[in-house]
């Protein structure tokens, strides 16, 4: 009885406190209309973690700069970021959460095409515009009219690398080594192959691996036996580094070529001297570019402990600029209006170049080719679309 009494007394003390808490929350709820929420899903951890982190850092920088300049539509922009852990299945979960629980008005993400493809139908269904910073597989924006990207697509990137192999490297016998788990890799391999054949070259071996494998010696031995002059490995950086190491161990000493999936400091950290002299295409190089991209490099280094932004950081930055610009022009956060404004994006000055969104909701932009020398990425050439 005495205990019950104590409890009763305790709750008497607590009751006003609880009330104060509830009341205290109210104004915060009311403030919701003063911010515009934008959701981001990125591979902050896992196999493609450096991609997600670079892209995320670019996006954060863009949002901070936009907010410092007064936000958009007179409101502050709030960026809500979710980690996809580089895993299939996660994007659907986190994007659903961002849309239904957090009520974001737009989605930014992801780098990997397979994961963007997973989130795109959800954004399309909910009529929330999605802007992918650097998913290059054509299928991503084919999902629907709410899905956009601020980068080039694989038919272009594959063609660029094939022309580079045929014309610059003068390679006629080429092998292709594809990651069958990745839509990005399969797409790139297909367009590369078509262009090599068109250039009069020959595909001497076509082998496959599963992204995340560690042992590639079986396939590489077969590739070596086919005696190619160059090998196209359109995979992601961890796999590419291991492939390069094992290729050199087996005495396969021809240049390896890759796409934008290679660009990560992990490639040289794991690959070391094995990746020296290899080539890959990507969106942008900090070595060349407009005044805007120079300013971006300086601001990025100031914000992120002196790190030099890679192409994925630049794309992450641009994706946020393009989406916020569309919200500004739409004068509203309503999905359909933002979508129309995004589709009307024309000659937008961005870090990775001038962005015009075409009828397929892709950006048509130039690509750059980099090579690896002394553990550093060196700019070779820019190729216009």
């Amino acid at each position: 009885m005495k205990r019950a009494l104590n409890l009763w007394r305790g709750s008497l003390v607590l009751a006003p406190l609880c009330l104060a808490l509830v009341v205290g929350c109210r104004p915060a709820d009311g403030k919701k209309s003063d911010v515009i929420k934008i959701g981001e899903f990125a591979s902050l951890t896992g196999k493609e973690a450096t991609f997600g982190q670079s892209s995320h850092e670019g996006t954060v920088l863009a949002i901070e700069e936009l907010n410092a300049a007064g936000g958009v539509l007179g409101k502050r922009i709030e960026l809500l970021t979710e980690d996809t852990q580089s895993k299939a299945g996660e994007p659907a979960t986190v994007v659903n959460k961002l849309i239904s629980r957090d009520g974001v008005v737009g989605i930014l993400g992801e780098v990997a095409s397979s994961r963007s493809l997973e989130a795109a139908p959800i954004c399309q269904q909910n009529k929330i515009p999605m802007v992918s910073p650097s998913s290059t597989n054509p299928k991503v924006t084919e999902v629907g009219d709410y899905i956009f990207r601020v980068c080039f697509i694989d038919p272009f990137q594959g063609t660029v690398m094939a022309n580079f192999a045929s014309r610059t490297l003068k390679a006629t016998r080429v092998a292709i080594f594809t990651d069958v788990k990745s839509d990005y890799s399969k797409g790139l391999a297909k367009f590369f192959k078509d262009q090599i054949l068109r250039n009069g070259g020959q595909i001497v071996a076509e082998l496959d691996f599963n992204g995340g494998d560690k042992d590639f010696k079986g396939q590489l031995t077969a590739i070596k036996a086919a005696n190619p002059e160059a090998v196209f490995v359109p995979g992601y950086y961890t796999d590419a580094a291991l492939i390069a190491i094992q290729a050199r161990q087996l005495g396969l000493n021809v240049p390896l070529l890759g796409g934008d999936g290679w660009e990560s400091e992990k490639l040289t950290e794991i690959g070391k001297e094995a990746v020296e002299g290899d080539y890959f295409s990507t969106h942008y190089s900090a070595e060349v570019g407009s005044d805007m991209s120079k300013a971006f490099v300086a601001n990025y280094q100031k914000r992120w402990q002196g790190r030099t932004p890679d192409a994925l950081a630049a794309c992450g930055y641009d994706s946020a600029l393009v989406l916020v610009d569309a919200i500004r022009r739409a004068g509203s956060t309503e999905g359909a209006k933002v979508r129309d404004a995004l589709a009307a994006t024309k000659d937008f000055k961005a870090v990775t170049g001038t962005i015009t969104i075409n009828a397929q909701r892709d950006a048509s932009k130039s690509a750059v080719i980099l090579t690896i020398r002394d553990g550093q990425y060196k700019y070779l050439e820019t190729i216009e679309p």
Partner: protein
Amino acid sequence: MTEFLQQLINGLALGAIYALIALGYTMVYGILRFINFAHGDVFMLGAFAGLFFTPVVERVFPPQSYSGGLVVLLLAMAVCAGLGILIEMLAYRPLRNRPKLTVLITAIGVSLFIEYTCQHRLVFGAAPRKFPDLIPVKTWNVDLLVISSTQVIVFVTTLLLLVILRFIVQKTRMGTAMRAVSFNEQAAALMGVNINSIISFTFGLGSALAAAGGILFAMSYASIDPLMGVQTGLKAFVAAVVGGIGNLPGAALGGLLIGVIETFAGGIPGLSNYRDGIAFTILIAVLIFRPTGLLSKPQVEKV
């Protein structure tokens, strides 16, 4: 012909690692009659132990030396032996007299617990790490064949550990006790065998082999991550079943077999994308046509 021999070398080096891990599965099964699904994760922990010990060891031994490499290997094996014993004591021992299914599901839980704890950024983080070069890497060209010193070391270490293991199991008192427990736990207990310490010893031994596998794997493939034990562990488990679960030479044979077949499949265009499926296809075939595995004899069960 050159390509065939090269693939054989590649396959044997890969298979040797599967064999080391498979031994752990099979030993635990032989004694406790359950599959320790956390075994693949102990393999991963072994590789990470190597990663953390290397800078420490390099302060005493010259970097990239055989002696230093050996010390790292032994330290990692010791740590993982301890971890294996700990896992058994905390997770499996309290369930000793429960149905085997309960223990099996607990093992899956332990495995997931280790994998996801280690992916946390305060532990190892999910990003792959570069594994340091423990020993000087050399490659020899014999005609057109390429053999790397790592491959030779992987194979020799595995053979050596196999011989040591066989000696322990067949010639020592501990081994005799292990075999007794495997044969009949109750009878062994009545003969004065301390069941608990034998089981701990088995887990320690199996985990040490997994750690050795982890180091050898990391030496061969340079990059390690907290989920590296999932696929490799599964393949090794298949190897243990193919060879005849509970049978030590069977596990070694199964490991080599899976490694070689997988490598050859990888080298065939059109088949290379099914590479990971090959091990499981073999498993299904063995389970249909020779359910007790390649090397074990059907046992008669008295009722």
